[in-house]
């Protein structure tokens, strides 16, 4: 009797481990730590071995502040005039729209052929490898390569920009297509629908929202690239004017004006992209 009563009112034992383990060691955690330490070590090494070409950092920063002041606080159209700059801006916008259209059309067809759930594995793998190689070459190098064959100018710029766009959009679109539920495709196959009927009646409507948003992301990238190609490959447009103003005539007031124009366009593109994405997502 007393024995069992004692058992009941027994004090609870103090838990053996006074510490609660906060972090579980897992492979993912170890990996994160390894990669971060490696990155920080590499950064430390690089920064201590950086070649500054004997430039006085202090005076350079002062100069930079002066340049930025000229650019952003006193912008003006310079010797080229507003009309010429707006025309050049228009050329760059057209370049980016056209290359995005080319990229979207070819990208969609390649994406359909490269998707694992639609075509056979070998064709898909071949296309994916080719596209990975095309993507690995920077846009600017594509533009330079084409400028030898077609001569400097818009044709080289369009082809150079398009190549990278096609490869990028192929990857993006095929990832969206591979995200489609298998049963959608199977059920259409059962009805005896032909390949392109499946593509345009089942796949196209299902992924249209993500297609549109990827295409607009690419449009923004293409606008940035069109400027870069204009500057470094002499392909015309606002990029060339920017290059001349900042690297040849050193007119930083004009540089500032051009930069403001470019920022205005990118804001507009972002705004349009958000609106259209909302429209497609709400349907």
């Amino acid at each position, binding site marked *: 009797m007393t024995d069992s009563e004692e058992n009941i009112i027994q004090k609870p034992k103090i838990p053996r481990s006074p510490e609660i383990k906060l*972090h579980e060691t897992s492979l*993912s955690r170890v*990996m*994160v730590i390894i*990669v*971060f330490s490696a*990155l920080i070590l*590499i*950064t430390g090494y*690089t*920064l201590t071995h*950086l*070649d*500054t*070409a004997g*430039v006085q950092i202090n005076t350079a*920063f002062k100069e*930079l502040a002066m*340049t*930025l002041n000229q*650019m952003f606080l006193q912008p003006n159209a310079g010797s080229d005039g507003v009309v010429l700059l707006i025309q050049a801006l228009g*050329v760059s916008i*057209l*370049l980016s*729209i*056209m290359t995005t*259209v080319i990229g979207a059309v070819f990208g969609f067809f390649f994406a359909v052929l490269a998707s694992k759930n639609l075509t056979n594995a070998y064709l898909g793998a071949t296309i994916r490898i080719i596209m*990975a*190689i095309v993507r*690995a*070459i*920077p846009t*600017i*190098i594509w533009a*330079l*390569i084409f400028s*030898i*064959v*077609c001569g400097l100018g*818009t*044709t080289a710029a*369009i*082809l150079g920009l398009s190549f990278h766009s096609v490869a990028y959009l192929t990857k993006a679109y095929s990832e969206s297509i591979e995200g489609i539920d298998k049963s959608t495709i199977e059920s259409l196959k059962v009805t005896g629908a032909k390949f392109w009927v499946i593509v345009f009646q089942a796949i196209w409507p299902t992924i249209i929202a993500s297609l549109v948003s990827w295409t607009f992301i690419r449009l923004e990238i293409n606008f*940035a690239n069109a400027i*870069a190609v204009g500057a*470094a490959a002499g392909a015309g447009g606002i*990029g060339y004017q*920017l*290059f001349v103003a*900042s*690297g040849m005539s*050193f007119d*930083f007031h004009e540089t500032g004006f*051009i*930069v403001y124009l*470019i*920022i205005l366009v*990118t*804001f507009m593109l*972002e705004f349009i992209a958000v609106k259209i994405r909302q429209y497609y997502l709400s349907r």
Partner: protein
Amino acid sequence: MQSSVKFLKHKGWHQTGIIALIGGIYFIGSMILSFDNAKGLLSVPKAFNWLFVNFRPTASSVEYLPRIWQKLIQTVLLAISSTVVAAIVSMFVALIGSKVTGVNGYVQVIVRGIASFFRNIPLVAWSMILLFSFKQSDFTGFLALLLMSIGYLIRAFMEIIEDEASETMMALKATGASYFQVIFQAVLPQILPSVLSWILYMVENNVRDATLVGILTGTGIGFIFDVYYKSFRFDAAGMTVLAIIFVVIVLETISNQIRRIIL
């Protein structure tokens, strides 16, 4: 029945309209830019033909390899270090500016504005301005990549914090933890894998962008490509392109493997 036919008809017109609009813009564009579509299409095979004849590295172009390799490694190191420094800076800014951990509404608006301002100034402009003050040195390339990356990473980090950390943070706040305890014990550990994934993406991107910066500011792999290209040593230029392809694909593979483990 009637309405569905009507709906499909409407939808058909809608789609045709959009396609016509895009096609119209395309053809007006090619007229304004005097881009001959047929000629452009024909020059693609011509370009590849030319590439295979001229850009093919020969036995003698192997001697360029050590120099290309050295510049390429230098470029990759620059890309990594600029991304890491940008990540550290943007992490602080993102913590101050995000909706979850941020200070107040005004700061949030200011941070968002600064981030999109930095993001939208073209890389060409950064390179040329920095080249003017910092001359032709690796530091110029480093700064150009750094300033560009900061704009992207601030936005990415803010979105990550808002998406992933808000619940954990609320839970820790409820226990009475202080602001810094919440940041270091809940927010940072929670978002670390996604942050790392973004850093890896930015490194890949910066290696590619470093080519452009290099051509403009005379540093790294872009400079060496430009030198070979402009002095008509196309076999060496081809070798450089092959080396770039190799490094970019290796980096992509490594970071995909890392992502598969951490996410």
